[in-house]
Structure formats: structure tokens, C-alpha cells
């Protein structure tokens, strides 16, 4: 096997339709050695990884999951360009043995390119479970391409796949010349016109088929390659073809059916053997399905919290000791430096860690729901409701994730395949209140509205729905104009959870969060620490207080004094922090030398009863209502803003969205104040 030719790393492109187990195979191959980024200049995620097999280095690139290789969507374009331009040594095409007919469709396109191909026939165990027998040896001889039967989730077939990949890389291209579209009456004449012009990966047969299909990019390439006379005669031919797309797709499927007729034996098959048939009947029911979805969401969040709470509690209990230790260490001459660490950096990092816990919990839960195949059912049952605000069912997932943590909601928008829909959803998710926000809302609410609190919460939620609908309408009308494509979504079969794959996804997200949010939050907490640092603990004299007073005209519009306004500002770093900020600014906290030291829960040193008393005396109910509304709809925490930037790669969207949230929250706060004045 130690072929000297193979000493440079072998590049493997992993192609496949969604839900064929592509990421499972990718994770099995690369283990933890993955690199996650974006495709150059695109907002589509790119995963690649390195591994060694038989003393040879291998470089795997995970292509976006696509159903075909047209030039009509960004993902398909990326997958196609990679194979054509980067000329990988081998393309592994995933297929799902339990849905072989449809999942081989991608292969019918890739096999026409001049590139070595190996078929990974995954989920062979599930096909067997359903009573289908697949003769993979026969399939291999029919296709003329190496076929490796696999059950990747169980780790079966990985070694065989690697062996096949090495052989294919060494053996070169062996594309069969038989074409699924060759029977087309125009095939021969079109091919003869472009004959000799395409001998790269983009072969003559690939180009011919793409021309018949009417693929805009292929037409453009050919137009630029041919002489004017040749192009003219080709154009005449192409104009005669009607329904090119239907003809080519039909030809591909009939070729697949021919191949499979002697390969798949369905004698033992029955739908009853499919997993989750009964559950699915309920899960896709218009009424019961929604109830199931909501129940699953509530249980999931509870589960996420059960996983995460002990970790949060542990860290929370260690922090005060750590802070004390740092203070003592620097209690001599460098008092301010000790404070920078103890009151600025450590609390900042603590907040980032708490966010990480939320993000982690939400990702695990949604990763699990997606992996077992449930999420698309949820998208299905909520499609009609979502269409009322101009969105697809798929947008419901990020919106629901957002109730746990807005950061997770923002990254969750990746599941949406249309750019327009994705951007709208991305802005909407931060209007949803995250879990951390409720503590402050219920604290303030119960002081002033006690029994009427459910009414306040109800009105908050009603305003939220209105806010989301209006924002969506405005965005679609003025900002991201364009046609809306309707719902076409595969409902994948249910699977047992594959913890390896789920963990792989979660780990990638956690790493990305660490990189982007930790540095940003740490930097900002030091800045805020510096602005509010007062050795005597009288924060009324700090620069931050002056800033708060400067904004008096705005805060008076909401009926707030500068202290509550600063509490609103503090919410930008972390929603939970606002409460201790209020306590300290109202003179109840003991010994806080800067705002940031209040990011640690319980650090304000105030007694809740005293805080309740003071606030009830010095704040009017109308102002409290204004505060609650402004706080509820305020700009999301910094971690979310940073995530909006990393997801959109656009400063314009990040700043635009942040300004939008700020203005709307102040306006809603102001309105709540006026309404409050009328009521109280």
C-alpha cells in the first residue's frame, strides 16, 4: 500500500444529500482534528479535517449537503465548484440504503465528472431492519464504481471505506461512459459541437447534460469557450429543448431504477417495520403535533438546565473565594490592578462562562432533536403559523431556541436554506426573551404588580408577537426583498441518537463561542470597570454615572432616573447583572467598587427585602412598567451581538440590528410609561 505516488496528502471530498449520515462519517474519519470555518466569502459553514491512514496523510473536506448539483443554490454551487476547481483525489458520495432510489440522485450527477468516485452505502442496517436486502456487490458492478456498505453510526465499514478511497485515489478516474441522459435526441449533436473543448474535471458528458438541463452557469461557460458560429448553432439546438430539467431528472431516475431493479429486494418490506410510525402520526397532526412540540420543548429546556445547573453552581461557589484571593494578593501597592482583575476581568469571564453554559445546554438539546429526525416534523407542524409572519416552518426552531439563549437562536438560523428567510429570522430571534431575562422581569414585576403580574407577562408576550410580525413585515418589504420560495422539506426517517455526531456539533459551537465571545466580553468588562471604578465605592461620582446623567432626556421619556438607565445599559453585558446594579446604585450594596463586580450573583451584598422596599418607595409603577418593557425588548447581550456578526460576516447587519433593538426598546418603554401613567 505504500505507494510512493501517494505521499502527498490525499484530498477527499465528502458529498451527499442531507440526512445520509455525512457528518457521522466525517466525525468518524477526522475525530477531534477538525477545522471549522466558512467557505471563502460565503456564509456557508465549511468543515475539513486531517487524518492518517496507512502512513498516508488524508485531508477530508465536508461539502455542503445538497440534493443535486445545479447552479440554483449557494450550497450546490459551492459543492460543484469545489469538485471542479480543487480537483479532489477522491469524491466519496454518501447514499442512504434505506432510501436508495432518491439518495443515488446526486451520484448520477457526480459520476459524469472526471473524478474518482467511491459510493458509501450507509445505513445498510436500517434498510435490513425495514426488510430490504441490498446486493452491494451487484450494485458495484452495475455502477462500475466501488460501493462500500456501511453502518457509520455503529462504526461499521469505515476501514473498508478508507481502503476503497486509497485504491480509487491510486487508480485514477474510471467514469463509466454510459449516460443516463444519453438517450436524449439532442445529446449527440450537442456533444459533437463542444467536442474537444472540455477535458478537465468538467467533462464533455457533464457539460452536455448540464446544457440539456439548461443550467445557467454551464451555458455561460460554454458560450465563453465556443466560437461565435459554434455558439450560434448550439443555441439553436438548446432553444428547441423543452422542459430540459424535467427530461434530465426523469432520465436520471429511470437509470437509477434500471440499476436498482436487480439490486434491491423488497420482499420482506413493510411500512410497519419503519421506526416511529405511530409517533409520527401524532407528531405531524395539526393540533396534537403542536402540543407534542411544545411539550418536547419544555422538557428539553428542563433537561438542558438539569445538565448545566450543577456546573454553573459549582463555578458560582468558587468565584467569591477566587475574587477574595486576588484582592488579598494585590492589597498592597497595586490595589487598582487587583480591582481590575477581581472586579473587572474575573466577573466578565464568569458571565461569559455562564453564557457558555446556556449555549451548551441549548445546543445539546437541539442537536439531539435534530439527530433523531424530529426537528423537521416540528418545522412542518408550525409551517402554517409561521407563514402568518412571512416565514417558513424552519424558522420556528431558531425562534424556540432563543427562549433558551439568544446566541443559540442566532446560530440556529443556519438550518434555513433561503438567505432572505435566514436574515429575517436572524433579526427576529433576539426579540424573543432569553431565560436569563426572566429573573429581572419577575423581580421588578412582583414588587409593583403582584397579583396583576400574569397580565404584565401576557402583555409582554403580546407585544413580542406584534413586534416580531411588524419587524418581519418591514424587513421583507424594505430590506431583504426577493421572492419567497415555498416549503419543500424532506422528513427524514427517525434514528437512534448518535451521541458522537451530536457531541461533534456541540463541541464545534462551543469552541467558536469561546473564541468570539470570551475575548470581547473580557475586553468590554475591563472598559466598563474603568468607567465605573471608584475606590470609595460611591459610584455616583464615576464616569459611568455622568454618562447615565447625560442621557437624562432619553430616560425621562421613559420615566426612568439615571440609575435605572444604567441598569438598562448593564443588561448589554449580561441580563442577570441588572438587579445588583440597581441595588448598588440605590445605595444598598456594600463595597462595590465598580459596576462589573456586580456581574457575580450575590456580590452586591444587598438584602432582597431592603431592595424591594427602596425600589417600591423611589420608583413609580409607571416607571417600573417602562423599565420592564425597555428591558424585555432591549438589545440582546454582547455574546449575541458578537454571534450576529460572526454569522452574517457583516458589520452593517450587526450595527443595524443593534440600533434597531435599542430604538424599539426605548420606544416601547416610553409607550409603556404613558400607558402606565393612565392606569396608575
Amino acid at each position, binding site marked *: 500500500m505504500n505507494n510512493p505516488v501517494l505521499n502527498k496528502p490525499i484530498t477527499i471530498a465528502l458529498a451527499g444529500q442531507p440526512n445520509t449520515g455525512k457528518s457521522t462519517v466525517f466525525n468518524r474519519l477526522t475525530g477531534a482534528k477538525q477545522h471549522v470555518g466558512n467557505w471563502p466569502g460565503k456564509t456557508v459553514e465549511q468543515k475539513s479535517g486531517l487524518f492518517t491512514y496507512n502512513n498516508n496523510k488524508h485531508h477530508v473536506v465536508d461539502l455542503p449537503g445538497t*440534493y*443535486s448539483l*445545479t447552479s*440554483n*443554490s449557494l450550497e450546490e454551487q459551492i459543492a460543484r465548484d469545489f469538485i471542479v476547481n480543487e480537483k479532489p483525489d477522491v469524491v466519496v458520495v454518501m447514499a442512504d440504503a*434505506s*432510501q*436508495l*432510489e*432518491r439518495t443515488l*440522485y446526486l451520484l448520477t450527477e457526480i459520476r459524469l465528472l472526471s473524478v474518482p468516485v467511491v459510493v458509501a452505502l450507509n445505513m445498510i442496517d436500517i434498510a435490513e431492519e425495514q426488510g430490504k436486502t441490498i446486493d452491494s456487490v451487484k450494485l458495484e458492478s452495475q455502477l462500475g464504481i466501488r460501493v462500500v456498505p456501511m453502518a457509520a453510526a455503529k462504526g461499521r465499514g469505515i476501514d473498508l471505506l478508507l481502503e476503497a478511497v486509497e485504491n480509487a485515489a491510486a487508480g485514477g478516474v474510471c467514469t463509466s461512459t454510459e449516460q443516463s441522459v444519453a438517450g436524449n435526441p439532442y445529446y449527440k449533436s450537442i456533444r459533437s459541437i463542444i467536442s474537444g473543448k472540455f477535458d478537465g474535471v468538467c467533462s464533455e458528458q457533464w457539460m452536455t447534460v448540464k446544457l440539456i438541463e*439548461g443550467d*445557467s452557469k454551464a451555458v455561460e461557460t460554454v458560450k465563453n469557450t465556443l466560437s461565435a458560429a459554434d455558439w450560434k448553432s448550439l443555441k439553436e439546438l438548446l432553444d428547441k429543448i423543452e422542459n430540459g*430539467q*424535467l427530461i434530465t*431528472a*426523469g432520465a436520471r*431516475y429511470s437509470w437509477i431504477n434500471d440499476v436498482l431493479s436487480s439490486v434491491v429486494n423488497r420482499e420482506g418490506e413493510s411500512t410497519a417495520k419503519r421506526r416511529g410510525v405511530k409517533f409520527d402520526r401524532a407528531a*405531524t397532526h*395539526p393540533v396534537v403535533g403542536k402540543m407534542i412540540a411544545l411539550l418536547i420543548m419544555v422538557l428539553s429546556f428542563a433537561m438542558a438546565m438539569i445538565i448545566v445547573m450543577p456546573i454553573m453552581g459549582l463555578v458560582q461557589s468558587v468565584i467569591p473565594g477566587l475574587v477574595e484571593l486576588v484582592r488579598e494578593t494585590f492589597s498592597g501597592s497595586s490595589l487598582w490592578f487587583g480591582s481590575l482583575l477581581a472586579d473587572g476581568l474575573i466577573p466578565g469571564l464568569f458571565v461569559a462562562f455562564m453564557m457558555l453554559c446556556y449555549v451548551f445546554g441549548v445546543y445539546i438539546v437541539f442537536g439531539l432533536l435534530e439527530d433523531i429526525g424530529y426537528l*423537521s416534523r416540528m*418545522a*412542518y407542524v408550525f*409551517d*402554517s403559523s409561521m*407563514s402568518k409572519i412571512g416565514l417558513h*416552518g424552519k424558522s420556528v426552531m431558531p425562534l424556540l431556541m432563543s427562549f433558551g439563549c439568544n446566541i443559540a437562536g442566532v446560530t440556529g438560523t443556519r438550518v434555513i436554506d433561503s438567505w432572505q428567510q435566514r436574515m429575517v429570522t436572524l433579526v427576529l430571534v433576539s426579540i424573543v426573551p432569553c431565560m436569563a431575562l426572566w429573573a429581572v422581569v419577575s423581580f421588578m414585576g412582583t414588587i409593583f404588580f403582584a397579583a396583576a403580574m400574569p397580565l404584565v407577562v401576557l402583555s409582554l408576550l403580546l407585544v413580542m408577537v406584534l413586534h416580531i410580525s411588524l419587524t418581519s413585515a418591514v424587513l421583507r418589504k424594505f430590506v431583504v426583498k426577493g421572492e419567497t*420560495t*415555498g*416549503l*419543500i*422539506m*424532506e*422528513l427524514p426517517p427517525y434514528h437512534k441518537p448518535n451521541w458522537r455526531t451530536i457531541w461533534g456539533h456541540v463541541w464545534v459551537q462551543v469552541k467558536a463561542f469561546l473564541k468570539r465571545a470570551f475575548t470581547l466580553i473580557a475586553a468590554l468588562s475591563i472598559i466598563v470597570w474603568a468607567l465605573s471604578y471608584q475606590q470609595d465605592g460611591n459610584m455616583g461620582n464615576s464616569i459611568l454615572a455622568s454618562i447615565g446623567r447625560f442621557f437624562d432626556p432619553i430616560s425621562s421619556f421613559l420615566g426612568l432616573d439615571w440609575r435605572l438607565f444604567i441598569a438598562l445599559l448593564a443588561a448589554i453585558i449580561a441580563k442577570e447583572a441588572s438587579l445588583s446594579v440597581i441595588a448598588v446604585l440605590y445605595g444598598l450594596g456594600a463595597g462595590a467598587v465598580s459596576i462589573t463586580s456586580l456581574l457575580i450573583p450575590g456580590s452586591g451584598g444587598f438584602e432582597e427585602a431592603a431592595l424591594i422596599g427602596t425600589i417600591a418607595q423611589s420608583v413609580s409603577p409607571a416607571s417600573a412598567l417602562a423599565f420592564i418593557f425597555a428591558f424585555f425588548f432591549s438589545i440582546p447581550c454582547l455574546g449575541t451581538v458578537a454571534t450576529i456578526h460572526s454569522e452574517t460576516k457583516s458589520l452593517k447587519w450587526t450595527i443595524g440590528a443593534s440600533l434597531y433593538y435599542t430604538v424599539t426598546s426605548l420606544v416601547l418603554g416610553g409607550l409603556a410609561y404613558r400607558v402606565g401613567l393612565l392606569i396608575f
Partner: protein
Amino acid sequence: MKSLDRLLKGQQGVIAYLTGGRKFLSRITAMGFTPDVMVSVVRNGGRGPIIASLRDTEVALGRGEAAKIMIKGDSCE
């Protein structure tokens, strides 16, 4: 002949033809919807998206999308 959104739950038929723009056709054909294939309706509540089953796959389709798929066959003559 009927469009797919008019088929009731449990009914099936063969696709006669598809209408619609380039983007729609490329997505829908890659999902398996091509002329002459047998398709059955798993769920159709009269409003909201439907679920169709074909080529061993279940696909959720918006009503507008399903209306562009024309069906011939016994259960809808």
C-alpha cells in the same frame, strides 16, 4: 387530473407533469418528483402544508408547491 394538493390523505396517483420556474423545478425534481412516478399523500389537512410520500421518502410541501404538481391515476379520476 388533479393537482397534488387536492388529493386526500391516503390517496395516490402518478405524476403527469410539473409546472413552475427553474428554481422550483430543480429543487422538486431532486427530491424525487418527476413525471411517471407514483406518489401518495400521507397528510393533507385541507390547509397548511401536506406530506407526500414517494421513492421511500416523505416530503413536506407547501400548498402552493403541491398545486404545481399534476397527478393522474385511479384514485383521482
